[in-house]
């Protein structure tokens, strides 16, 4: 094999300009794919992290039918104590669950004594919320990180700007409870919440005990249970471990609960799927580049060396060795392109990572992306390139091996 590699290497060196051109083409393809993959996967990871770690969690549990009418923030579709207990039976001791938090979602009127407007609110248990959504604190502007206390609220940035509300201002929240009575509560604005893409991304927050008070709730009651799992890659398994909740039925024989992964709740998941599709498309382009360039160079190589192939065949070189010679040439081109492409990509991504790319997404601006190259991406792309290089060399290699030595020796 050592000698086959030596001859293949020298044959590639013989047409050094052509070899370099082909290798450069493969290298550029590899760079393009790896840099794109690093950027897109960093973007996905960043955005998914933002969504799941600061707003949505990984899994949400509601009363059946809640999500269908979520725009109305229905209070009559809250989970009651018995139902919450059923959920906790499944969540406590579940090996996939890291933490969970309860929320009451409601709509109301927000007033700063000068003007008033509609507001969507999440009533939260600050301690559980912090554990379940570790990035939530980062969304809070103009405030030192601290746990929300009773009598305090966080208002969305758009509302704060529109009404000129600042941190420290006092406001009045007026809501209708399930029975229709109107109740009000004075709350101090302790922070402004930065918007985030997706449902609930522009909601305000206040303490769950305040919500119980204003809604006159006596028994435990929540709109949704937000769950953080230990390993995001095990989302399907975690969902499966909670599936027993979906089978629980009420007296009318209808399901009581509905479970949703973040992928079903956030429209960003469609963007993720689109990015994945683009990733595949770019890999297909890379495959085409490698396939066409290596096929081209190997076919030319066979035609140029017909007499040489005839000579080695006449001397007694078995067809299998001739096949190996040409496959090795294609393989070496692939390996060269993969190695050089990976090294250059690594440097490019390191530079981008150091500088950082600022971008805006939806109403979020000033986001900074720090891409990183995953070892698995390098391995996947390198395997694709090398395998395709070998596949592209198969036809020319067999053509060379099947040449009739007599006909080949007649060529000039």
């Amino acid at each position, binding site marked *: 094999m050592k000698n086959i590699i030596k001859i293949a290497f020298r044959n590639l*060196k013989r047409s050094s300009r052509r070899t370099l051109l082909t290798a450069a083409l493969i290298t550029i393809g590899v760079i393009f794919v790896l840099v794109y993959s690093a950027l897109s996967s960093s973007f996905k990871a960043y955005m998914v992290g933002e969504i799941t770690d600061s707003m949505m969690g990984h899994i949400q549990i509601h009363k059946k039918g809640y999500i269908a009418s979520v725009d109305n923030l229905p209070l009559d579709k809250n989970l009651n104590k018995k139902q919450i207990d059923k959920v906790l039976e499944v969540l406590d001791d579940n090996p996939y669950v890291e933490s969970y938090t309860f929320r009451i979602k409601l709509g109301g009127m927000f007033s700063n004594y000068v003007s008033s407007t509609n507001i969507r609110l999440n009533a939260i248990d600050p301690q559980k919320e912090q554990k379940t959504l570790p990035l939530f604190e980062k969304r809070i502007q103009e405030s030192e990180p601290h746990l929300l206390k009773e009598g305090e609220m966080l208002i969305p940035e758009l509302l704060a700007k529109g009404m000129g509300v600042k941190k420290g201002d006092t406001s009045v929240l007026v809501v209708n409870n399930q029975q229709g009575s109107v109740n009000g509560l004075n709350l101090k604005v302790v922070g402004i919440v930065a918007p985030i893409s997706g449902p609930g991304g522009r909601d305000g927050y206040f303490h769950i005990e305040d919500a119980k008070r204003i809604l006159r709730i006596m028994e435990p009651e929540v709109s949704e249970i937000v769950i953080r799992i230990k390993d995001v890659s095990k989302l399907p398994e975690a969902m499966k471990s909670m599936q027993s909740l979906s089978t629980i039925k009420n007296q009318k024989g209808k399901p009581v609960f509905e479970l949703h992964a973040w992928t079903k709740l956030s429209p960003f998941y469609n963007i993720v799927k689109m990015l994945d599709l683009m990733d595949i498309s770019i890999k297909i382009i890379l495959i085409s580049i490698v396939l066409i360039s290596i096929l081209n160079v190997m076919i030319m190589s066979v035609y140029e060396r017909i007499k040489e192939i005839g000579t080695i065949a006449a*001397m007694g070189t*078995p067809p299998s*060795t001739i096949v190996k010679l040409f496959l090795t040439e294609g393989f070496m081109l692939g390996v060269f392109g993969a190695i050089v492409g990976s090294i250059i990509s690594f440097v490019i991504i390191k530079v981008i990572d150091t500088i950082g790319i600022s971008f805006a997404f939806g109403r979020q601006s000033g986001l900074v992306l720090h891409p990183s190259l995953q070892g698995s991406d390098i391995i996947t792309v390198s395997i694709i390139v090398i395998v395709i290089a070998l596949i592209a060399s198969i036809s020319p290699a067999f053509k060379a091996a099947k040449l009739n030595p*007599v006909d080949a020796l007649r060529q000039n």
Partner: protein
Amino acid sequence: MIETKHVSKVYKMGELDLEVIKDLNLSVGSGEFIAIIGPSGSGKSTVLNILGGLDIPTSGEVVVDAVNITNLNTTQLAHFRGEKIGFIFQSFNLIPVLSVYENIEYPLIMIQHLPPKERKKRVLEVLKEVDMLDQKEKYPDQISGGQKQRVAIARALVTNPKIVFADEPTANLDSKTAHRIIELMHKIKQDYNTTFVFATHDEKIVSSAERLITLVDGQITDDKRIVV
């Protein structure tokens, strides 16, 4: 050493069948120095190719060193050539990316798979025999035509073949170099009892051959032994 029985070779030329070898019956013994002569198109090269296992006859049998090579498949034929046959070509056909030493070593590595020590011994031996020891590091494009043919001879001989087939081996050489090459092959024949079969127009080879086979239109018209 070589026996052919009723060998014929027909080439398809579109609708036409062109019979280039007709009922060839030939017997070649060990250590012979044979020149096959005849006008262009008489079938000299085709006979050489068939005897050397490069081409398959349309009909008839070719037995070389007790092996009926007409029954062998492509891989078996390649193995047979690698073990028993040496070829010398008109235009030398050296591998341009390999040095003189590596060209000669090639069949020992890629075909006979000999260990490095044995390879080195054999290559140096034939390099000495063809007087190219001092040129062993050079590449084919750095040596003259005569030197290239010496390397080609060395490459053909390094596997210790029983028979060497040479198709117009002196056609691309000047007269003086051609003489030296013929002398070299004679010496090898005497030293190793190697059989040489030439297809040639060259008078110098003809005059040094021990047996002359004349081919006209694919048939042997004359087969005579020359007493030197």
